[in-house]
């Protein structure tokens, strides 16, 4: 009886030490998968997904609490990238969280601005420059187009302006006829199967 208890106790103790050592040896700093998801998200910090920003949303995806289709600014390309990373099936964008718009920036109508600083406090990326009773302005390259500054403005002087295509940003459009092929894919598959 005593031998049995001792033998199992010593064995369990040894295994405990081994696991304790390997827990230190193989310690994982933070959640690497969260970093990878966060790198894909557009970093608008707009909160349209229902989370406080892109990183909390990435944590929610990694924990399996959120779906991958709740990010309107990222659009389809973002969902596809997340699906590839996580090995899940891509989903259509969830309309509840808003629709995908092209890249846009906020522009303050400087003649109407009263310098109330409310939009400064709302901006998640500190892209608005100004002080109390001074005219404010948006730093266009910093602005993520999250629309969070529009709501608090008491004089409605902020407009969202789509970023115009320049020679540097222009891309070939996706061919229209290929879209129909992709829409027919399930039927095609069934025909082949």
């Amino acid at each position: 009886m005593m031998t049995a208890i001792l033998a199992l106790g010593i064995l369990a103790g040894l295994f405990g030490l081994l696991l304790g050592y390997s827990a230190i040896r193989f310690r994982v700093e933070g959640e690497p998968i969260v970093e990878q998801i966060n790198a894909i998200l557009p970093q608008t910090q707009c909160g349209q997904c229902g989370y406080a920003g892109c990183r909390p949303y990435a944590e929610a995806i990694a924990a399996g609490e959120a779906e991958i289709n709740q990010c309107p600014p990222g659009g389809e390309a973002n969902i596809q990238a997340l699906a590839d990373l996580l090995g899940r099936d891509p989903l259509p964008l969830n309309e509840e969280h808003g629709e995908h718009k092209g890249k846009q920036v906020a522009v303050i109508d400087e003649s109407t601005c009263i310098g109330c600083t409310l939009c400064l406090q709302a901006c998640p990326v500190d892209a608005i420059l100004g002080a109390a009773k001074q005219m404010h302005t948006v730093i266009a390259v910093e602005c993520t187009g999250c629309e969070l500054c529009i709501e608090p403005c008491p004089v409605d002087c902020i407009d969202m302006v789509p970023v115009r295509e320049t020679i540097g940003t222009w891309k070939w459009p996706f061919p229209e006829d290929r879209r129909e092929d992709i829409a027919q894919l399930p039927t095609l598959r069934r025909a082949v199967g």
Partner: protein
Amino acid sequence: MTEYALILVSTVLVNNFVLVKFLGLCPFMGVSRKLETATGMALATTFVLTLSSVCSYLANHYLLQPLGLGYLRTITFILVIAVVVQFTEMVVHKTSPLLYQVLGIFLPLITTNCAVLGVALLNVQQHFGFLESAVYGFGAAVGFSLVLILFAAVRERVAAADVPVPFRGSAIALITAGLMSLAFMGFSGLVKG
């Protein structure tokens, strides 16, 4: 040398753990939906099976038998397997966070994979030595991986096929598994004697 080769062939094909002995069916049905997941699971299980087979042989041969504690075999083996799985989980979490994410709950569930305990107990039953235990465990793991990956490939194909409504989902998967099992029964004539 021939003996080891025979053990290997016998466990991989003739006495396949999943399709002939019907052990480890839970991960076989659970993680075979996607080929990538199945491959990851196969690798993790291979590692755990081989290592736990060797470790449980050592525990049995150097601890239980000299002390005459044969009746503690099952609980000791479960302890050994749990430790090996925990260790594997730490290593996978460190080396491949994505695989860790994809395998999710199935990684700790290797502990309850009856194939793992089955291999350890059959080692004792058949009076295998150290190397024989290692080869037997590895063979069982290769057999498990082989059918898991084959089955995942079949299921991916079936997912695109036009299956009659009453057979969709798990039903067709179980039928497919049954047919694969029938096919593997055909190997029983491979080794004479």
